[in-house]
Every structure is written in structure tokens, then in C-alpha cells.
């Protein structure tokens, strides 16, 4: 079986309104984050791959399965959608147990998996209460529990950190990382770019229904050549270092760090920059403590490729 999620030239129009246009993507196992402003098409992509909406054109395959093949697809896929609503009058336990029973498993097996998934999101104590009485964070957790309860190989999470307090957010991120390490596909949409940095193996940037960039954050940053890369160097003589680096014409900006023990340098050619830096270090004129890229994170590439509207960090 193919282990990729594949979008082949997929377009979706809602009447005359564009959802997504000509998206071609191949997503390997690991944690992939969809990043883009509101209305950019992130949820449409997720709904397309789960069959909640049908593409106007193009083809989608999830591990070799078509989204219209619900009986097989949803044995391997869990989707924690953004819709904050539940069947009326249902308890957390019933919500997960009923969904597991629809997989055709025995009652004993469904009970076992229900307990396991509720404990995974620390919701065991509230399981018997009606979901209508849950806080927003608890509702988010019970949706997550339902999505992972049947041990899917692909997990699609639409803004899964919304409404969670910092502690629950950290626990959820740890859960995603654990699932990612187990070789699962996790496709997460998020606008919290700091967290995207922490959890993502790959990012997919999308704006206005179009694919802007995809790959690892570092790969994508390297591809944005028109924006010089910024590097922070902690050293004992930042002014001297800046002067030396400026003698090279690909260094376009230098800014001393506030504490006077470092300098931010911008360069149009990062390879030559590091080679030059090695030379200076070898000369022994400047003692360097650390060298770290300062703008190869999700926030920076979001700013460079999409702009500031809609993104928060």
C-alpha cells in the first residue's frame, strides 16, 4: 500500500468561490502542518481528503485509498474537525463508544479503546458527563480522543490546539510528537506558528487557495532567496565581526544585539557566509560562542511568503 497522501492537480470551487486551485502535493509520514491565513483553503484541503467535500477536478489518494471509499478509509484515518458541535444530549463516553461500535468491533474492544482514548487526553473523570456541559478545551479534547480512539494511521487535525490551556496544549503537542515518532501521518492545520516550529517535520504554506510552498521549514526558507537570511552570532567582538563580514558584498545588513555580545547579520549567500565565518574563527580574532539562524522558522517564512495578515505567533 502506498504510504503517501497525494493530491494531484486538485481544485475545489464552491459555486463561483474558489476553495483551492490546482494543488499538487505528496505528503510522506510524519507531522505536516498546513499554514495559511483564514480562508486560505486549509480546511477545504482537509475536507477534500476525508471526503466531506468532493473535488471539482483532480484526484486524491490517502495511502492508496480514495476519499469516497469511506468504509476502508476511516479504518485508517481519524479526523478531528474544527466544527465545535456534537450530537445532542450525548456524553463523552457515548460519543467515543458509539463511534467505535460503528467500526464493527465487539463491545469489550470498544470499551477498552474508549477508556484508553479518554485517558490519553486526561478526560476519564468527565466521561460520564454530557458534552453540552464541557468547557471549550474539554470539547476539543473529546474530539481529539474520538479521532485517535481506533488507532488510525493517518490523523487529520484542524486547529487542534484552539481552546486548550497551556498545560493541555503542551500535552497535546507531546501526543502529536509521540504519534509522529510512531510513523503515523499527522496533518495539522494551525495558525500558532511557534507551535508549528516545535512539532512539524514539514510545512505546507497555502494562501488564497493556492499552494505557496512545501517542505521542511529549512528547505522552504532556503528557497526564499529574495529575502537574505539572518544569522545571530554570539561573540566577544561583534563590531569587528560585523566589519569583517561587511567587507564581503553578499552581507547586506548588520545589527548589534542589545546586550552588545552578539550581532545579527543578513546575507544573500548563506554557504559563502558560513565559509567566511569559519575563516574568521580560524584567524582567532573573534571568539564565537554560538552561531544560529534567526529567521528560518515558520513565522519568518510565513511573513516572507504570505505576509503578516492572518498569522500570529
Amino acid at each position, binding site marked *: 500500500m502506498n504510504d503517501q497522501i497525494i493530491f494531484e492537480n486538485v481544485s475545489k470551487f464552491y459555486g463561483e468561490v474558489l476553495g483551492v486551485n490546482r494543488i499538487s502535493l505528496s505528503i510522506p509520514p510524519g507531522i505536516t502542518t498546513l499554514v495559511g491565513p483564514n480562508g486560505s483553503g486549509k480546511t477545504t484541503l482537509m475536507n477534500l481528503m476525508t471526503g466531506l*467535500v468532493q473535488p471539482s477536478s483532480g484526484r486524491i489518494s490517502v495511502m492508496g485509498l480514495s476519499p469516497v471509499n*469511506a468504509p476502508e478509509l476511516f479504518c485508517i484515518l481519524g479526523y478531528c474537525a474544527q*466544527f465545535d*458541535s456534537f*450530537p445532542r*444530549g450525548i456524553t463523552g463516553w457515548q460519543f467515543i463508544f458509539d*463511534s467505535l461500535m*460503528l467500526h464493527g468491533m465487539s463491545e469489550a474492544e470498544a470499551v477498552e479503546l474508549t477508556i484508553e482514548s479518554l485517558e490519553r487526553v486526561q478526560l476519564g473523570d468527565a466521561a460520564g458527563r454530557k458534552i453540552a456541559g464541557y468547557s471549550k478545551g474539554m470539547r476539543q479534547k473529546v474530539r481529539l480522543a474520538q479521532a485517535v480512539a481506533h488507532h488510525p494511521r493517518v490523523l487529520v487535525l484542524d486547529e487542534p490546539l484552539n481552546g486548550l490551556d497551556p498545560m493541555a496544549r503542551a500535552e497535546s503537542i507531546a501526543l502529536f510528537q509521540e504519534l509522529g515518532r510512531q510513523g503515523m501521518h499527522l496533518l495539522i492545520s494551525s495558525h500558532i506558528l511557534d507551535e508549528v516550529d516545535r512539532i512539524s517535520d514539514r510545512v505546507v504554506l497555502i494562501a488564497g487557495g493556492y499552494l505557496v510552498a512545501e517542505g521542511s521549514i529549512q528547505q522552504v526558507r532556503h528557497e526564499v532567496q529574495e529575502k537574505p537570511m539572518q544569522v545571530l552570532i554570539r561573540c566577544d567582538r561583534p563590531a569587528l565581526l560585523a566589519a569583517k563580514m561587511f567587507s564581503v558584498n553578499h552581507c547586506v545588513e548588520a545589527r548589534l544585539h542589545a546586550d552588545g555580545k552578539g550581532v545579527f547579520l543578513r546575507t544573500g549567500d548563506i554557504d559563502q557566509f558560513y565559509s567566511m565565518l569559519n575563516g574568521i574563527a580560524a584567524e582567532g580574532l573573534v571568539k564565537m560562542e554560538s552561531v544560529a539562524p534567526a529567521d528560518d522558522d515558520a513565522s519568518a517564512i510565513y511573513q516572507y511568503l504570505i505576509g503578516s495578515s492572518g498569522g500570529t505567533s
Partner: protein
Amino acid sequence: MMEVVGKFLRSLTQQPWGLWWIQARRLIRIEVRRNLFTWKAGWVYFLAFIPTLIILIHLSVDRHPAFAISEDTSVLAGIVQLYYIRLGVFFGCLGIFSRLIRGEMIERSLHFYLLSPVRREVLLLCKFVAGCISAVLLFGSAIAADFALMYAGFGAAGTDYVFNGPGLGQLEAYLAIIVLACLGYGAIFLLLSMMFRNPTPAAMLVLGWEAINPVLPSLLQKLSVASYLRHLMPVSVSAHGIFALLTVETEPVSAWAAALGLLLLIIAVLFYACYRVRTLEIRYTTD
């Protein structure tokens, strides 16, 4: 031809019937629970049991001389045809069956079903069966209670009419009519709720269609639930004035042909509903 039939039968045997059966049992249980045990179902209970309450008052207030049995039998037949078939079951089924798909879209909870490993056709048919069970339980028990209360006041004469006369046969016919009415209106309202954001105006058109059906050509009369049920009535009801709009006079048809005709109508409607559910999209913001 034989080869095609053989291939079709082979493909039928290869379907996961066991899994569908398990899923169907669970889906029907969930849906019946939602249909019957919520506050919102209160008005359907009201529609089903309001005649029962009136008959109960009639039982406790009025005298029941033996010669009045035939009059009460006609009243009961009128209640079934004029109230249950044309209004009670009609609006009860509108409430129950339009909730199954459209109601869940309004509540934004339908996607949970569509994200489960259940064929959409199986889901739709299970929802339909659950709706039918709920409606038949409510209206069937209401009719049975109406029947029991109607003849309870007659003492020995009533018992004799029920057990040694035509009583039980009439009850069976009423229950069969209620089952077919729930199936027929249920299928129509399930489909309407998938076609329209608000199925109520369309349902009012159906009500109007049912009312004018007797004056339509005989071919068009076959597109009516009430016209089929009319042929199954064990006691004919003659109505005058405004009530004449609620009765149906059609050309005579045998009971089995009426039942078969209605079942064919239901199958055709469900077939089209299955086709539509395959392409149903979840776009709550536009629903």
C-alpha cells in the same frame, strides 16, 4: 442474461453483510434514542396522543349504550383517516425524518457519521429505518390505545365486538395503515430534507398535493401516499364540508395492489435519496 444475473448475485454475496448488520444495529439504536428520548420529540408525542386524551375524556364522561358501537367505529375510522393519516402522522413524520439529515446539518453534527467507516447508503437506510421504528412506535401505540379506549366503555358488547366481531381485524388494518403511512411520508420527508435547506414549504406543497389528489387524473393519483392508504381503510369514512378536503375518493384498487404500489413508491424515493447521499457535501456555513 444468466451470466449478468449470476455476476450480480456473486457480487451480492461478496458484500460485507455481517459488518453492515453490526453497524445497522448500532446506528438504529443511536437514532431511535435521539428520536424518542429528547425534549424536542415532545410535540411528536403530543401529535400522536392528543386523540387518545380526547377518547379518554369521552370514555369517562359519555355514556356508552351498545347501539353506539357502530357510531364510535365510524368516529375511530374518521380519526385515523382525517387526523392521523392527513395531519398527525404527516407532521410527526415531517418532524422525525427531516431531523435525520437536515436537522444534523443544522446542528453541525452530521460529519461525525460521514467520518465513520459506514457506507453512506447504509447510513441513510439505517436512519430511515430508525425513523420508521420511532414513528411506528409512537403512532402505532397511540392507535392501539385509541382503539382500546374507544371500546372499553361498552363492556361486554365492546369485548364481543373486538374479539368475536370485526374489531381485531380493523385494529390490524389501522396498524398496517400507520406502518405504511410512516414508511411513505418518512421516505418523502427524508428526501425533501436532503433537497431543501428548509423542507417545511415543500412539505406544505405535499400536503396540498395530497388534498387536491382526488381531482387529479388517475395516473397522478398514484403519486400520493394517502390515496393508497384509502384503499386499506377497513371502515369507509364519508366526510362533508371542509373535512371532504381531508378524505380521498379514488378509483377502487385492491388492498394488496395499494400496498404494493405504495411500497414501490417508497423504494423509488429511497433509491433517489441514496443517490443523493453519495454526493452530499458538508458545508455547514452555507446550510
